């Protein structure tokens, strides 16, 4: 056991003396959390609108006004030419075009039915979907106002069902509360996996691993010595990240922080072991980095940070069981935002424990004192 402590001491010395690595370890989580959290915003606002109003009646003007005062849209083009509006759409100067027919008001009053055409730039499908949702919502709101505008007989009851909705856990729909916990989980996973893989391969590339191999050092001592420093550092990074998250973004901390640190203690071996496993199969730092990068990109894309896990096809959701980052992200969100208890997340604990054991077992098994 003393041997392991010596190794850990050596590792820490190397880390702190390395002028590139140390600032990286401190700054990367902080900078990335800040950068990613500010950039990662799926809130769709500031949409540019193009209006083609052939009617210019009080009704159509009222409708256009509803759009521009909704807070979601800004009118960037108003004209009569379809061709011009299409050009604006092609040049990305507007996101949406609304065309109102020439006898809009008359059709509403006389025939009780009118048409509106909305064209959205759907290259970014989800953005277009949300934009379209807002737009149709505004139109329906307008329809409900018609009796008040004198465009429909008073006392008409649009009838139907009044829906009142509420948003739990995040009433202001603050996207950062959703992103920051997940981002924190993702960044820590990324850093410790990378650094572990690179650390071991670096020794191999420079030849110092041979020196370790000819000592009486046992396999398990070597492995522990390599994993422990980053294990401890991951807790420090988590604390740092949570502090930044709280101070800068005021993220909710509903659940037990003790449980959060406990989980991350259990979770770190998953990514450390993965890094280790990768290092066993890489000859150069470049290979290790690219392999780790490959896996991490797949894991991060599928972890639920950018798109919901529930929207993935069923087979992909099952494959996601092999994605450790997904457990961490989901855990952080459930505990920090909803105040989940241990009973709610015991599945996460179990999965992460099992994953850690398997990955590290594999890493130890495939580690050969080869050259």
């Amino acid at each position: 056991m003393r041997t392991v402590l010596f190794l850990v001491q050596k590792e820490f010395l190397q880390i702190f003396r390395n002028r590139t690595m140390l600032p990286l370890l401190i700054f990367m989580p902080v900078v990335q959390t800040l950068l990613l959290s500010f950039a990662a915003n799926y809130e769709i606002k500031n949409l540019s609108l193009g209006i083609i109003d052939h009617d210019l009646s009080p009704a159509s003007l009222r409708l256009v006004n509803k759009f521009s005062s909704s807070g979601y849209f800004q009118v960037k083009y108003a004209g009569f030419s379809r061709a011009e509006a299409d050009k604006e759409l092609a040049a990305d100067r507007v996101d949406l075009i609304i065309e109102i027919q020439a006898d809009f008001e008359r059709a509403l009053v006389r025939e009780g039915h009118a048409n509106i055409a909305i064209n959205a730039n759907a290259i970014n499908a989800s953005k277009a979907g949300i934009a379209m949702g807002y737009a149709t919502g505004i139109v329906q709101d307008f329809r409900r106002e018609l009796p008040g505008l004198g465009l429909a007989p008073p006392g008409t009851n649009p009838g139907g069902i009044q829906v009142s909705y509420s948003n739990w856990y995040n009433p202001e729909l603050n996207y950062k509360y959703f992103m920051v916990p997940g981002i924190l989980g993702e960044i820590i996973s990324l850093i410790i996996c990378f650094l572990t893989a690179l650390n071991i391969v670096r020794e191999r590339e420079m030849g110092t691993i041979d020196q370790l191999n000819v000592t009486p050092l046992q396999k398990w001592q070597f492995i522990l010595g390599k994993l422990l420093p980053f294990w401890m550092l991951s807790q420090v990074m988590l604390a740092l990240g949570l502090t930044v998250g709280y101070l800068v973004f005021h993220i909710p901390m509903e659940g037990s922080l003790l449980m959060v640190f406990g989980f991350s203690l259990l979770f770190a071996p998953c990514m450390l072991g993965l890094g280790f496993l990768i290092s066993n199969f890489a000859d150069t730092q470049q290979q290790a980095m690219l392999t780790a990068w490959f896996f991490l990109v797949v894991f991060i894309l599928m972890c639920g940070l950018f798109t919901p896990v529930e929207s993935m096809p069923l087979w992909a959701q099952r494959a996601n069981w092999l994605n450790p980052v997904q457990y961490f992200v989901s855990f952080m969100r459930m505990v920090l935002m909803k105040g989940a208890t241990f009973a709610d997340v015991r599945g996460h604990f179990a999965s992460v424990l099992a994953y850690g054991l398997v990955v590290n077992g594999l890493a130890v098994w495939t580690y050969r004192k080869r050259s």
Partner: protein
Amino acid sequence: MNFRRLQSFFHKEFLHILRDRRTLLILFGMPLAQVLLFGFVLSNEIKDTNIAVLDQSKDVESIALTNKLASSGYFHVALTLQSADHLEPAFRSGKIKMAVVFPPQFGKQLTHEGSAALQIIGDASDPNTATTLIQYAQGIVFNYGRQRASSQASAGPTIAVQTRMQYNPEQKAVFTFVPGVITLILMLVSAMMTSITIAREKELGTMEVLLVSPLQPLEIILGKTSPYLLLSLLSTVVVIVLSMTIFGMPMRGSVLLLALECILYTFVALSLGIFISTRANDQMGAMFMSALGLLMPTMLLSGFIFPRESMPWALQVIGYAIPATWFNPIVKGVMIKGIGLEVLWPQTMVLLGMAMFFLVLSLRNFKDKLA
């Protein structure tokens, strides 16, 4: 410039790269994996989302409406709750993402008074999903209410909205991601790999050997960058062909224009790679600088995944300095919208400017620091 010398240097570099099978595999595999992920796995589509229903009236109307929600394909009634106390634990455990609450006497109010109230609760820990779920539910409820109310005389005028998703009628997520993946590959292979290659020679000490050889600095740079230029273009072609054949991504514009723009962007990336290699002392440094300074911003701030309009002003400004921000609309424009230089000339000019600026800067740096 001696071409025979250059040729033998080229040959050496190519051999280096081709003999590193693992790296090649990943350099080609990563963009493939990303495109496949974006095409088949990642989406924002809402389907079979688990919801809870708290039906306090349990009459014909409430049951009919619940059935309508359940058969829409968007929702799956995972829990039927008996009391409002069960709502919180259900949300907290992550079992449901939305709850529909019918008040008592729902049916009676709807049939006798023509309107009734309904409550929908969304799990806003995921704000976008919650908003979309509530929007969908509202739509279904609204339609149902209108059907019931139209049996009554005065329903008021209706407005029909004809929606059209331009450029991407099937709303495939792939359309917005493939151009971004291309910017990422080109940056990864051209910039990162180039910087690592040159940094490796520095780290292993073989750069000195190169410099005392008859090779001119310019020849060294050409020899180091050309293989990666070719590799990245090849990778891009593979990605484009794949996305066209498997995902039906269109190529509505000029292939020649796209090829030229890709080469232009690659030049920018290459010169950035050279620049980084002059600043980094070892491979790890080069890798981290490329990752943090190039790849991260390209992924996050260029509008690849997150819309730039939603970002805080400071990040939008930084985004202007990133080549990918200008290249993205070019790819989308040429492939998906079918436009040409007449619309894209501003972006092309910016890229030209960046290419020249960084080329001169890096060459100057290389000569000063290394030669």
